[in-house]
């Protein structure tokens, strides 16, 4: 603590260089945070996937349906506890850019399958009673300034015509990573108005008794419907979501590459600045050593300085990122969750400290090994 004035004095030595060094950390950590946010967005489905849930879909393609009759047959398979289903509606509210996902759900079973979504009982009952009722996630409700009781017209794109819904409830989520942009309505209403053959659903979600048994149960499901006209592919919700993300390309790799380049550049900039700054101060360091500052203390002082830059810049960068995410998803609903996770912040802090440490280590070693007599002669 008593070395703080010495540290602060060194940080304030070359104002411009200090600002640029700290600025590099700020920009880098802001970017890092943002990459984390985007990664989280793409992977949120994987992150929040229930370990005891399987997704059953048409083997040919996700957009091909399955018969509603499978519900009962799925329930009979050993290891299966509950079954629900849903269909993708794909409608547009006013303009195509107002994207949010709409699902036609099985009102009797859907809520029980997804306990991470919280809806007051009264609202759910109101919804269940109203054939044209809907439940809207908090984010979407707030995005369009809707309230319970509003009538919402949705233009169908797959199905035909304009569909009117009345908001009967709003759902919240237990975790920040849960998607609260969805819009649910009665499958029976869709089934009634659909211009396509009736009694087909998009996919099934199945809860199993034992998560460790997911493999065998999935296999049993697919075998059960093998050689029928609607064969199935069954996988865990996590695997399903991961497969879904893969459609967009290898997001993780892109994010990792960009992140690594940013961090490597940061390391070069900070390392260069620290080396320069120590080289200019050789004489002062020699004096400190002469008056009794030992090698370890000198090493510590230089490292503390580079970590000081890192901590200030990193804090600013992550804070700016947090502020940025607070203003919400900038992509009009493409990224259903858009927040800086604790995990990303922790990684960010770790990387900040690491870059600070590594970039300061070479100058710190130079300072530590500095020979006093030689250094004094150099001037």
């Amino acid at each position, binding site marked *: 603590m008593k070395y703080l004035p010495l540290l602060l004095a060194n940080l304030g030595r070359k104002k411009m260089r200090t600002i640029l060094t700290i600025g590099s950390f700020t920009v880098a950590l802001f970017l890092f945070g943002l990459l984390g946010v985007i990664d989280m967005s793409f992977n949120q489905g994987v992150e929040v996937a229930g370990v005891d849930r399987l997704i059953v879909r048409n083997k040919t393609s996700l957009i091909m349906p399955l018969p509603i009759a499978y519900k009962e047959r799925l329930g009979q398979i050993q290891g299966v506890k509950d079954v629900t289903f849903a269909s993708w509606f794909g409608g547009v509210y006013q303009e195509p850019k107002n994207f949010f996902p709409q699902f036609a759900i099985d009102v009797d079973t859907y809520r029980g399958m997804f306990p991470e979504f919280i809806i007051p009982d009264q609202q759910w009952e109101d919804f269940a009673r109203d054939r044209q009722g809907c439940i809207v996630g908090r984010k979407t409700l707030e995005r369009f300034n809707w309230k319970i009781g509003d009538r919402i017209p949705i233009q169908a794109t797959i199905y035909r015509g304009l569909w009117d819904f009345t908001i009967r409830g709003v759902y919240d989520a237990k975790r920040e990573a849960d998607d609260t942009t969805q819009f649910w309505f009665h499958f029976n209403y869709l089934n009634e108005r659909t211009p396509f053959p009736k009694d087909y659903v998009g996919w099934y979600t199945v809860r199993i008794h034992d998560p460790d048994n997911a493999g065998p149960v999935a296999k049993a499901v697919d075998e059960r419907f093998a050689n029928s006209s609607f064969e199935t592919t069954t996988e865990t919700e996590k695997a399903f979501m991961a497969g879904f993300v893969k459609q967009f390309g290898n997001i993780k790799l892109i994010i990792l590459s960009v992140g690594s380049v940013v961090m490597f550049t940061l390391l070069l900039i900070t390392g260069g600045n620290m080396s320069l700054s120590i080289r200019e101060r050789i004489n002062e360091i020699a004096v400190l050593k002469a008056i009794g*500052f030992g090698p370890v203390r000198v090493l510590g002082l230089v490292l503390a300085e580079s970590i000081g830059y890192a901590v200030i810049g990193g804090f600013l960068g992550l804070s700016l990122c947090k502020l940025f995410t607070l203003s919400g998803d900038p992509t009009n609903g493409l990224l259903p969750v858009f927040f800086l996770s604790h995990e990303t912040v922790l990684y960010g802090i770790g990387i900040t400290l690491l870059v600070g440490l590594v970039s300061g280590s070479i100058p710190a070693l130079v300072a530590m090994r500095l020979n*006093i007599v030689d250094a004094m002669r150099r001037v």
Partner: protein
Amino acid sequence: MTNNLHAQDALIAVKNIHKNYQRGSETIEVLRDVNLNIHKGEFVAFMGPSGSGKTTLLNLLGGLDVPTSGHIFIDGEDIAGMSAKKLTTWRSRHVGFIFQMYNLIPVMTAFQNVELPLLLTRLSKSERRRHVEAALAIVGLADRMSHYPRQLSGGQEQRVAIARAIVTDPTFLLCDEPTGDLDRKSANEILDLLTRLVQEHAKTVLMVTHDPLAANRAGTRFHLEKGVLAVNSKGEAP
């Protein structure tokens, strides 16, 4: 044998010091068989032409470097055989350094510069403040405590450096051409100050200088010539 008698009560006793530097395959003998005794409270000047080994000798006495052979007893301890680690601690307790170029930290105030050596002690913040204020008062800069080096004249900077050297109350002070970068008037002020430290505060001061006027202030003068300690002012054999 007078030398040995002297050595009994000498603060600093240098015995048969040799210092060689290796430059490629060539060995340069910078100090050759240097012997000397310095007593507590003495003001000693080292003179000699450039390259004669004055700085090298001072560096050895200050524990910044180690001799190739020989012994340096200071207050009874032989620092010639100390490890680098021990020497670091020893320096912080026993030596006050004053350099030609002042070597203050430009981004710290006079107060903070003087406080630096005290950071290595166990003194509390208020005790440190008391010591720093006392040292700055001795050098006559009590009213310049919060000035930065660039806001001070060369003579004032050197006085801050002297305050930094005396603040830990070291066993002795080493000054390598302390007036070398100053005008006559400032140089005289620094010399007055060093004289006062010896006379009023019973400090032991060892000073390297080119300047005969500076050397005249010292009670004892040594001459170095090509690494050999030649004459001293008292006319004794070294």
